């Protein structure tokens, strides 16, 4: 059973297009995240949602819009794709990250989506 799944695994598209990446977790977690890993393998958080509510929104261009239809899903929509958006995007989930130290729990990562913008 896949705990955190992402689709698609690979995405190749032209500049200016709009694309979406889907993420689903079957762990019953309340918190979900999107991370971007650049070509140098540096991982940086983009967003986190807790039970469909936006919690963390790092300085990400507003072309990126996360959407959480329910707490098991967190999709990432990207408008007007640019060359610099090429990266691997990881979804992750964890227990509620707001309820204190005992909830500083493991984040479970999906397999990643490699986005290539031509």
């Amino acid at each position, binding site marked *: 059973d896949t705990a*955190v799944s992402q689709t698609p695994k690979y995405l190749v598209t032209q500049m200016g297009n709009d694309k979406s990446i889907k993420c689903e977790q079957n762990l019953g977690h309340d*918190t979900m995240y999107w991370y971007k890993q650049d070509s*140098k*393998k*540096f*991982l*940086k*958080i983009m967003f*986190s949602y*807790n039970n469909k509510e936006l*919690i*963390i929104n790092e300085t990400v261009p507003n072309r990126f819009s996360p959407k959480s239809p329910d707490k098991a899903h967190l999709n990432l929509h990207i408008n007007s794709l640019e060359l610099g958006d090429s990266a691997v995007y*990881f979804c*992750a989930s964890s227990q509620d*990250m*707001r309820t204190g*130290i005992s*909830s*500083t729990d*493991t*984040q*479970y*990562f*999906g*397999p*990643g989506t490699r986005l290539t913008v031509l």
Partner: protein
Amino acid sequence: AQSVTQLDSQVPVFEEAPVELRCNYSSSVSVYLFWYVQYPNQGLQLLLKYLSGSTLVKGINGFEAEFNKSQTSFHLRKPSVHISDTAEYFCAVSYLSGAGSYQLTFGKGTKLSVIP
């Protein structure tokens, strides 16, 4: 602000030799420390974590790490590596952000290459 420094971007080591991957952090608040491993073309997997208690933490696949508060370090060690340990290793700190939730900040990773 919290930051994580992984001092070595690449570490080559012969099979069955010991290895230490170094991690230092800076923080003005209490932090919780993690090591994740990323095998080629895969997502990240937790190796071990330190939240409190014993400063020596044991993880999966024979790895361990020691939290040293005075040196603000959390180095990862394994006494004898295998070819299958070849991967990218990420140190991370979790801290309570201004948004009221715990947030992970990652180091830039260390690529461990095990040589047969």
